[in-house]
């Protein structure tokens, strides 16, 4: 079946106001809502599952499969929550989608709510994203006026309310159970799992939490079909996703591309390679909580499994390039400061381990560190490993540290012996 090549960004033109509902509909928008209303909810879920769409928030879990864990309707409320709390260091894709094509997200919310039979949806938007808030408010208002939200959508038996919730801050709200607590007006500490949110989430009711970009993929899958979605990917993958580059490159930015594109294509063809006078030392493949990869890994396709084999995580697939004139120890110190600050304080390895880690990194960076500190840092990565903590924050923080200790060991030792040699910070 025919459909757009770049379904996520086809309506986006930087500098132009986002499409109104009329413009968006003229460009083929809201077709998926009409289609999904005529389908069995299970069939909508199956299509999304068969499309191979993986979560775009960082974990990459099959979206349709995640939906399939929601129990059958029992007459009580069920919730869809969109995670628009983009705060992973180096990640700037959801901002683009929400500021420039808010109707795509709203359409995705409606179609996904039909799939899981949700009666209420929330978009959990990070509080600093003021332009996205304005764009989404307008889009939601238009959707209500056009009968795409509210009671008996498009004359069907299906009703849905959508509320835009602006967050009051904190990185931990990106963790889905912490997000649910924040939405309930509580401190955003993560919850114990199981039960998973699909069974017992927001106010103890079945809840699905999906990332903005994930939900933005749903309209295309339902409008144009699974085969079309599959035809978009390369290297055995399906669909498109937004990847990007920051750091000292010629043309930093983010772009939609086939899932399965290599890091090299992203880095060289889209971002134009390094600025003159700089070389790539390493890169973080998908946010601050991923392991450093090296220039030799550039030919890897951006596929979660392939990146995992190389010892890292694809994460959000927005890469941050560390150049040869910027101190890797200072870079890791900055990351540890971030994670220490953003720990919710619930469990010990995170609450106590991260500030201690930051302190040792600071000592090393300022020339007062010791070889013992390096050994301690190695220990810390084990204390903060998966299984020792309540959520993924501390294990994520350990990733740039453990890979840094591996790839830049000489520089750690040099910092102990001679202090920091880098001028440029």
């Amino acid at each position: 079946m025919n459909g757009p090549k770049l379904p996520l960004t086809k309506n986006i033109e930087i500098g132009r106001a986002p499409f109104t509902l009329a413009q968006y509909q003229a460009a083929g928008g809201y077709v998926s809502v009409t289609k999904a209303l005529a389908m069995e909810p299970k069939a909508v879920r199956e299509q999304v599952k068969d499309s191979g769409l993986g979560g775009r928030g960082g974990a990459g879990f099959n979206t349709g499969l995640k939906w399939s864990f929601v129990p059958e309707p029992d007459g009580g409320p069920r919730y869809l929550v969109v995670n628009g709390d983009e705060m992973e260091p180096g990640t700037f894709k959801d901002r683009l989608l929400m500021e420039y094509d808010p109707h795509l997200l709203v359409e995705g919310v409606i179609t996904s709510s039909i799939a899981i039979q949700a009666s209420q949806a929330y978009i959990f938007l990070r509080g600093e994203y003021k332009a996205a808030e304005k764009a989404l408010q307008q889009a939601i208002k238009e959707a209500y006026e056009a009968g795409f939200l509210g009671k008996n959508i498009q004359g069907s038996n299906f009703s849905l309310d959508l509320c835009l919730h602006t967050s009051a801050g904190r990185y931990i709200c990106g963790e889905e159970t912490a997000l649910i607590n924040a939405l309930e007006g509580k401190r955003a500490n993560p919850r114990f799992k199981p039960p998973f949110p699909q069974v017992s989430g927001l106010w103890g009711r079945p809840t699905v939490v999906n990332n903005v970009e994930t939900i933005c993929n749903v309209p295309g899958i339902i409008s144009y079909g699974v085969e079309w979605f599959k035809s978009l990917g390369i290297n055995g993958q399906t669909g498109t996703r937004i990847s990007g580059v920051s750091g000292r490159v010629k043309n930093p930015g983010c772009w939609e591309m086939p899932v399965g594109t290599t890091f090299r294509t992203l880095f060289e063809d889209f971002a134009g390679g390094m600025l003159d006078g700089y070389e790539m030392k390493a890169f973080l493949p998908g946010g601050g909580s991923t392991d450093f990869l090296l220039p030799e890994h550039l030919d890897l396709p951006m596929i979660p499994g392939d990146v995992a084999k190389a010892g890292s995580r694809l994460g959000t697939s927005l890469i941050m390039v560390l150049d040869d004139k910027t101190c890797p120890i200072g870079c890791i110190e900055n990351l540890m400061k971030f994670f220490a600050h953003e720990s919710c304080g619930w469990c010990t390895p995170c609450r106590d381990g991260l500030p201690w880690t930051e302190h040792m990194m600071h000592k090393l960076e300022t020339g007062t560190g010791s070889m013992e500190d390096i050994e301690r840092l190695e220990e810390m990565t084990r204390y903060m490993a998966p299984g020792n903590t309540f959520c993924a924050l501390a294990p994520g923080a350990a990733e740039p540290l453990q890979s840094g200790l591996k790839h830049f060991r000489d520089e750690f030792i040099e910092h102990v012996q001679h202090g920091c040699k880098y001028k440029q910070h």
Partner: protein
Amino acid sequence: MSNIIASTAPKARALTPEEIHEIEHEKTHYPYAQAVGLEALKIVQKYQGWVSDESLLAVAEYLDLAPDELEGVATFFNMIFRRPVGRHVIQFCDSVACWMLGCDSLKGHITSTLGIEYGETTADNMFTLIPVPCLGDCDKAPVLQVGDVVYRNLTPEKIDQIIADLRAQA
């Protein structure tokens, strides 16, 4: 009893009609008062600039929430201000993408220009400087945000201009 010593502990102030109107509107979006609590703190802050003890108690009283629990929420979220802030809150991004492009020296430029560190407010109550987690504009790093406006590709000269413009606005 007439000899009870008058308490100096803060007391709830009266919420304004505008605040009550907006809090009532938020009630329609959430089935429980606790969820409205955080929204109400944001509403109060919008009108008052920050959340004083008197405001916090007023919200707790209005929504029938435990004040201590609401306080725990208020102090958890970094966008709820439990101390007065200046007219313009400079949210300075110092996360890794901005750091790699030299935000440390820019922060130094701001602190020396305004004479304040993180968490402090200028004597004329014009500016408060706080750090903010990655603002999600990394391809235009370094960045900072004031109110609704994100300032991108910062240089010391641009920062001087931003500060001058904000002063002129006041």
